[in-house]
């Protein structure tokens, strides 16, 4: 369970969003919103990438502020537009994430195979296309034993085969008890991801759109 309390985020004088309470039971959540509504900001904030006012608690006991290491061990993130140092290889980055997230080589190989990641990971990321970067980012997000995986626009830049593979992977991980927050511009309602709830971020407020 993920609990966000007294959340307020602004960039300088620009208010992005604020809400008093958001309680997300384990499940799969779709976060919708127009461009610039703050979806990625909210995802980054939950991932611990951005500072904010408020508190986030995982399973009612692990605080993002008080236990930052334990929290980050259980919350993984994949960026909408991943950026990696162009001189490092995908293998180096995956290996780094694997070592700190307590993943295993076998797990990495399994996810690589599911996402259709071929041998290009041994090349520097500077040579990757945006789709390849996205797959690397998704690979890193599935490494370890997370409770929550935050996927920011995961289907953007992926080909159809990879989109299907990702849906399959999400379903599989949901079955294993992992929860997801997914943002997407694409209409993923038609996909067979078992969404628990859909939220819309609009005018700095979070609205629950539908309860499934």
């Amino acid at each position: 369970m993920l609990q966000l309390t007294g959340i307020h985020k602004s960039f300088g004088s620009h208010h992005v969003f604020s809400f008093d309470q958001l309680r997300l039971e384990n499940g799969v959540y779709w976060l919708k919103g127009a461009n610039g509504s703050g979806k990625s900001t909210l995802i980054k904030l939950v991932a611990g990438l951005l500072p904010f006012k408020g508190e986030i608690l995982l399973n009612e006991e692990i605080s993002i502020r008080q236990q930052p290491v334990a929290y980050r061990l259980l919350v993984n993130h994949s960026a909408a537009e991943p950026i990696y140092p162009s001189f490092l290889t995908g293998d180096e980055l995956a290996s780094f994430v694997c070592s700190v997230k307590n993943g295993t080589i076998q797990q990495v190989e399994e996810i690589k195979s599911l996402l259709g990641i071929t041998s290009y990971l041994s090349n520097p990321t500077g040579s990757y296309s945006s789709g390849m970067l996205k797959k690397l980012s998704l690979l890193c997000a599935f490494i370890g034993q997370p409770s929550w995986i935050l996927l920011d626009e995961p289907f953007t830049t992926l080909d159809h085969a990879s989109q299907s593979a990702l849906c399959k992977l999400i379903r599989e991980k949901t079955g294993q008890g992992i929860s997801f927050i997914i943002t997407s511009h694409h209409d993923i309602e038609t996909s067979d991801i078992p969404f628990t709830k859909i939220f819309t971020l609009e005018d700095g407020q979070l609205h629950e759109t539908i309860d499934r």
Partner: protein
Amino acid sequence: MGTRDKTLNHSIAGPFYRQHAGAFLFLFFILFGIQPSFNDALRTHYAFINGILTSLNFFLVAFSCWMLYAIKTIIFFKSCLQKESYDFLYDLNAIPQGKRFMLLVKLIAVLLAPLSCYALFIIGVAINEHRVLNGIGIVSTVFILHLLTTIVVYYFIKNAKALQQVTGTVLSFALPKNLFGFVLKFVFYRQFITLLIVKIISFSCLYFFVRTEASVFEERMLWLLFLTMVIGHSVMVFRNFHFLEEELSFYRNLPIRSFSILLSLLAVYTILLLPETWALRALLVNLDKASEYLWMILTGPFLLLLLHSLLYTEDMKMEEFLKLLFGVWVVFVFFSLSRNHWLLPAIGFVFSPVIFLMSYNKYEKNMDVEGLG
């Protein structure tokens, strides 16, 4: 000045000088600041130029420095072309070859302006010393360097798109796959020329100064020189910081203890200052000043770590960082005047973690409001 010249100057020359403002300030201080007076500085440079005019070896040393500077501008230009935001430069291929070349000649003249200025001084001294032919020879060399740099840059523009394809090879030596290894790789791979220039200046200054005869050795002057040389590494600290927070920013989602990050950075800066540690060993061997040696080799990494930690206090541009840098340098120089030199590493040791731990989680890059996702 035409629109194209203005565009090139704004997009390449401006960022080049802004990005290297710290390095220029450092070099200016080394070349003109450490002499007791301005007249002494002029006399020193007059002697330098005379050396360049009369001695082939001296000329070769100076030429190597000029060539390093020219390579630095070429690398900067190439790195700009590799960014998609600089794709508009590719449009230069649409204008006639002659005009394109002249545009680049003017741009390179702006980028190599410090060299050209020194060349003017060389002509002045050559006339004064009745060595006009030597002077013309040296100025011609500078001119050829201009021309060669322009040709290389011209070639890059012609192949601008190809530069965005597969980038260079990965370093052949293995480094640990962690923050420490990545930052170190960034220093060796992306900042190699800067590293080389800073190390040549820093190592040679310290190596020769510390070999001064014991009877005339001035300890406070060595501290001043040492602190200046360490501060000279701040360009690399600034870039390391931005590398971590921009290209490697995903590490903030990883379960790494703040203290481990701090230790990784300390290890990087300790390795970075190994040549200085070696250069200063005469303090230990010849001058029997073991404690001074110890305080110096401890101060270096902790000072760089302090500078890195200070960058987390707010999103600073290079200009703001330079002001901060000056403040830190003044504080350290002030404490170096005391007899308690242990205070210098102690300041770094105490304040680096405090500042880092207080500001690391609050740091946020200033961003444009538009395009918030």
